[in-house]
């Protein structure tokens, strides 16, 4: 009955009463056949076509992102990053003091366990662990960053981690609160006071996305510090805090010693990774007869479960919206 009235108001249908009659009859037949109320029918019938439409829209998005390395979606990502990025930074600023208390307790106990396990190691390693404990303190973290800049000879843009990609997405990425305004560009190296963190994959105005070296799709050119053997370091994407890395050496006969340090080998122009950044130390070496190469397991210096203050390596003299940590370890005021 409702249909009759509605169609009756429609000028076109009202103009030909015969057509209206046949329409109504057809509709009634269908209703009798399916025993469905008009409400349910209206609710369900178009939903399948909507499912197909939205599915195709998703497929279009995927195709756009897969062609030309996602160039078509880059502007859209930029706009979304400009809206969501500052909101993430704000949410993170609100959340940080609240979650800080249990975080402090948790990391403190885990650090204590770690120290106990490593007590037999040499004093240098212990000192390193001691300094890692101070990373809870923001000031100490900036100090460590300053020291890192001094060692590497680059300027650093200091920033904080404000967002973590969920494990459900099966990739290890974080958001940092420095973007193109701070001089951050894609393919820049990201370090913390302890060592290599990852590289910038995309940068918005105020935020940037960093691909961690523990991500399975991340490959870093690395060399063993003691023997200068070269190889490729791949993330294993291990879920959780324990991020281990696999090193495949180019020289198949080379066997690195346990506790050997691994550093970046560096690319031309410092992109995506600058040379000489400490990554981690060798914990295990596996060799199989079937595979020609050996698998070397590297334990990263950086604790990826509690990333907070990180630095983006930029060329000295970059224009930034914040103070840069210079190569001599001094804070440089923002040069607008």
């Amino acid at each position: 009955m409702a249909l009759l009235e509605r169609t009756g108001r429609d000028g076109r249908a009202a103009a030909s009463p015969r057509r209206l009659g046949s329409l109504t009859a057809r509709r009634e037949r269908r209703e009798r056949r399916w025993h469905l109320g008009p409400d349910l029918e209206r609710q369900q019938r178009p939903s399948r076509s909507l499912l197909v439409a939205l599915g195709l829209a998703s497929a279009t998005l995927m195709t756009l992102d897969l062609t030309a390395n996602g160039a078509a979606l880059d502007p859209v990502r930029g706009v979304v990053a400009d809206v969501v990025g500052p909101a993430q930074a704000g949410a993170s600023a609100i959340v940080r003091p609240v979650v800080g208390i249990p975080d402090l307790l948790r990391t403190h106990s885990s650090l204590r366990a770690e120290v106990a396990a490593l007590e037999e190691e040499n004093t240098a390693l212990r000192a390193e662990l001691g300094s890692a404990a101070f990373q809870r303190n923001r000031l100490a973290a900036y100090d460590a960053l300053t020291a890192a800049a001094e060692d590497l000879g680059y300027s650093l843009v200091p920033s904080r981690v404000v967002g973590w990609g969920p494990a459900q997405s099966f990739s290890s990425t974080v958001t940092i609160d420095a973007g193109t305004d701070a001089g951050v560009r894609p393919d820049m190296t990201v370090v913390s006071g302890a060592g290599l963190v990852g590289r910038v994959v995309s940068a918005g105005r105020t935020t940037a996305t960093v691909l961690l070296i523990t991500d399975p799709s991340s490959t870093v050119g690395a060399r063993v510090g003691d023997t200068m053997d070269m190889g490729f370091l791949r993330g294993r994407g291990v879920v959780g805090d324990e991020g281990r890395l696999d090193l495949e050496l180019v020289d198949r006969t080379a066997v690195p010693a346990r506790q050997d340090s691994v550093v970046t080998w560096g690319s031309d122009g410092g992109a995506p990774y600058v040379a000489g950044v400490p990554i981690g130390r060798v914990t295990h070496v596996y060799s199989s007869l079937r595979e020609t190469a050996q698998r070397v397991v590297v334990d990263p210096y950086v604790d990826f479960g509690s990333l907070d203050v990180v630095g983006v390596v930029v060329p000295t003299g970059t224009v930034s919206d914040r103070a840069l940590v210079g190569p001599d370890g001094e804070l440089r005021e923002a040069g607008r």
Partner: protein
Amino acid sequence: MTTARSLAAAAAVLLALLLQVSLFPHVAWQGVVPNLALLVVVAGALTRGPQFAMVVGFAAGALIDLAPPADHVAGRWALALTVVGYVAGRVRSESSPTATTVVGTVAASSFVGTSLFAITGLLVGDLSVGVGELLLVIGVAVLWDVVLTPFVLPPLMGLFRRLEPARVT
């Protein structure tokens, strides 16, 4: 009324994204966080049916795909959450949501959503984790979503229901 509902849905999705990116990683187990955006989609599906839920799901998925920490191929979460909206919406049209129905729907939706995301990753060559790890992540995600259901679903369903006067049949 539709405008108010759309605004409420958009606000809920944005809040869900912020919480699951900035708050829940601090309490995450093995890096797995509750999928709050999925819970918003399920709440929409149980109160408003598949059409509304599919649109919300697509929008929320596209936002997750394009917002900063994401580095995967865009459109994967959009597709996964659209299907979640459809599946959860079908549950609504067959029965009125009791507590058991809601929890069951959330568990099923979480499983379908995360699995579908992983499968599209395999199809487009964007996934490089083992099956064991995959199942572990899916299992923990389902557990998280079910645990958060009593706290998140009732207020959200109440919100969507209040913004929608009883349909005239």
